[in-house]
């Protein structure tokens, strides 16, 4: 039988841990307002959803591990400065005391099927809390049949859910010349279907960049499709959107959807 003194010490210790966790969570909730997204970035059609595994990681160790995988790491992490990409900088600025570890495994040219295999290996090796998966553009360029693409993505999404890893899908890129490309649009719609069916976050990169292109075009008078600066501006937008999505997902208290009036603050 347990000694009553030990029991009371145990209870006191458990209470202290509980109170600490609760206060950390409360303090965090009170402090954190999701970072805004520049108005120019348009609406990426993100539906705020909780990221329960990342929230638990934050509470337990004040640290989240993000695995970035897919075609272009710059596209999801944002441009780097002093060794840390924009996404990391926004997140660490927004959530006080948060340590963000980004594991970048963006090998370009890879199709969804191969990336899915690599995601499984990287999850086994690194145990990330969130996977940022930029997917679709390569498959569309490589003319992968839509049903094969959908099956590959769905299989990986389900595997990640089974293994308690949060997932944010980052969709296809935008270019005016691709608006009439039937296969490109079919892959885009397919990714959207998977996100809805599997109830996972998808950031509509295409939609966001389309708005951005119009904004840039109206500002400069240049034909948007010739403006290669769009790509770089798109990187900034994606990093902002992802940072906002992660923050909202972790604290599960969505203030509002869509872009704000204040750029990037």
């Amino acid at each position, binding site marked *: 039988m347990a000694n009553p003194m030990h029991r009371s010490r145990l209870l006191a210790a458990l209470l202290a841990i509980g109170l600490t966790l609760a206060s950390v969570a409360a303090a965090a909730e009170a402090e954190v307002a999701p970072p805004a997204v520049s108005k120019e970035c348009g609406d990426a059609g993100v539906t705020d959803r909780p990221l329960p595994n990342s929230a638990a990681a934050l509470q337990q160790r004040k640290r989240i591990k993000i695995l970035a995988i897919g075609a272009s790491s710059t596209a999801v992490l944002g441009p*780097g400065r002093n060794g840390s990409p924009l996404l990391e900088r926004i997140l660490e600025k927004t959530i006080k005391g948060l340590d963000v570890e980004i594991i970048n495994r963006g090998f*370009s040219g890879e199709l969804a099927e191969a990336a899915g295999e690599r995601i499984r290996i990287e999850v086994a*090796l690194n145990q990330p809390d969130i996977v940022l998966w930029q997917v679709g553009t390569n498959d569309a360029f490589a003319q992968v049949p839509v049903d094969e693409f959908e099956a590959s993505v769905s299989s990986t999404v389900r595997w990640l859910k089974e293994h308690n890893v949060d997932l944010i899908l980052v969709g296809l890129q935008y270019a005016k010349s691709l608006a009439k490309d039937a296969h490109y649009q079919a892959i885009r719609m397919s990714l959207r279907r998977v996100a809805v069916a599997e109830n996972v976050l998808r950031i509509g990169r295409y939609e966001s960049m389309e708005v951005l292109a119009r904004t840039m075009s109206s500002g400069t008078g240049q034909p948007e499709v010739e403006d290669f600066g769009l790509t770089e501006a798109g990187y900034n937008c994606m990093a902002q959107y992802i940072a906002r999505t992660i923050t909202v997902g972790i604290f599960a208290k969505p203030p509002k959807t869509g872009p704000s009036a204040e750029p990037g603050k």
Partner: protein
Amino acid sequence: MPREANAVDFWRGFALVSIFVNHIPGIYYERFTHRNLSFSDSAELFVFLAGWSLGLLVYGNGLHKGRATPLTFRLGGRSLQIYTAHIFISGLALSMLAGAAYLTDTPPILDWHNAAAFFQDPARTQLGIALLTHQLGYFDILPLYVVLMLIAPAFVIIDRFAPALLLPLSLGLYLTALIVHFTAPTWPVEGEWFFNPFTWQAIFVLGFVLSHDRGLGHFVRCNITRIRQISLPLVVLAAIVAWFGLYPDPTRFPEPKMLFLHGKSFLTPVRLLQFLALAAVFSAVYPVIARAVPWITGPLSMLGRNSLQVFCVGSLLSLSGQIIRFLYSGSLAVDTIVVIVGIGLLCLTAWLAEWRQRLGSHG
């Protein structure tokens, strides 16, 4: 005169054609390459045969008996040649991507194959390309080859003075890299080399060691029938697992997981062992192929004899194939034309290289 068709050149040519096809992701003919029935693919074959060819070069020309300095210069020169070729084709690949993006008004093409960093941050990325710390997607095997040829003199010197040490040292480095999980970093985009040189050196050294008839090479030659009997069921089992996707969930393996995973970047043991079993089994097949279809062994051996030129042209043709498939859709007709024209151009490259050599020897 170019040397006669032989097994090493034939399998090297086979690897080059497979790499050309596999580097056009999504192409119809990708499903017919051997990686669909195997854990390993043409990359293992290519690097293993590069090590084997080093053995033939060193022992065939008696370089191992001479002084270390000329050997180092000769292999260092080869490394410089591969480096120059890599920088050249990387530059051309970037130009091809830029041209395709510009002519089709499709900026997302600039993001293909890790090229985005070059167009967004050209100063640092250009430096990264020169330092081999920035590699374009599908243009990442030559940097490994450069490093392997740079350290090849050390392999040869160890093999000369302490032959029993070479393989244990190589496998020790291999296992340490797997267990401790270290590799070469990339820069300016933070990440890792696609082909970890610390692990991939093991297959290169194995090729080198097995190429000559002493030590492990002697043992394998004496026991090749028994080795093939053991290897065949492994090859069949791997084919079944690969075809039906039966490889276990990687999260279920114990630590150190890397010893059990099926991963290309680190050349995990399962890939290495399956490759060695495959090589043991298929080393018996070449004489049969040479008798049954000599019209295949000739051209493939010619490709293998001129592997660097063919590899470089093949890399650019693979990228062209990807751009063509994007522009004209990936129908079976387009894919067939891409593959036939591509292999034809690879053969033309090899033929031109040998024609030039013949001119040189006559002049």
